[in-house]
């Protein structure tokens, strides 16, 4: 999860933060880290770039990007396993 937090920091240019500053279950948007709609698009890019995962439905966004833990769970569930 620490790697994922670092990737989020790098992707979103959150240069004031370290992985330790982001709680596993801390909300990422609005009252939490205060991310915005452009950040949401960057998180989609992050999933695609680092994990080759495309969000199957835009409606899933709020659920998937609720916290670092929910993103990690989505990655685990959707990462392709070698045949």
């Amino acid at each position: 999860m620490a790697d994922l937090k670092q990737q989020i920091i790098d992707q979103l240019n959150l240069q004031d933060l370290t992985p330790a500053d982001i709680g596993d279950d801390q909300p990422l948007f609005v009252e939490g880290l205060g991310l915005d709609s452009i950040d949401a698009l960057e998180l989609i890019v992050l999933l695609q770039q680092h994990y080759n995962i495309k969000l199957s439905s835009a409606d899933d966004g709020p659920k998937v990007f609720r916290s670092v833990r929910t993103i990690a769970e989505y990655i685990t569930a959707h990462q392709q396993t070698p045949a």
Partner: protein
Amino acid sequence: MNRKAHITAGCMIMDNMIIKDAKPFMVMDGDDTLTAGYKALELNYPKFYKMDRLSKLAILSTEVLLGGCALKDYYADEKIGVTLSNANASLDADERYWQSVEKIASPALFVYTLPNIMAGEICIRHGFKGENAHFVFEQPDHAFLHEYVTLLLNREAVDAAICGWIDVCQDHYEAFIYLIETRQGIEQYPVYTKENIQHLYELSYGKINGRSEATDH
């Protein structure tokens, strides 16, 4: 109606130096000079890191220009305008975005591929809602901006405005902005004329070229 306005502040940033009101204000040290300036001024505005260099320069120069002066205490949000100009539009962000397209296009870079975004960033930061405009010239055209802003003032579209030149091209960056106001009690400041703007520009530019290391900050 001809409204009398005054130039109540000025700021120039280039070659690692910040000049405020034609006096040396700060030398920015570090490889990333704009971020060094942000840290030295202790702005505490994390969105700064997400901006392109043009908007970073706009935010930095506006912070120095206003110097804690709450314009909103004197003017309605809708009466504070921003009129900017530059030579290279958003070319710096355009090129970075184009490079990102080779892999996966970056939404965060894309949003900065218009030069007037920097005026928007200034307005978001300070809560201004007045008339905005951006013009592209080969070099600073103080006479044109004076004519345009005077028109806005005379039509009472704005009561105060941040105006000037903010340009970024590769390693070169240059900001020269000034604050135009109409409130009572500022009669001691220079009257807003194109000649006085040119004078402020030359004084500020002279301080940059003189590389005076004595700063107020």
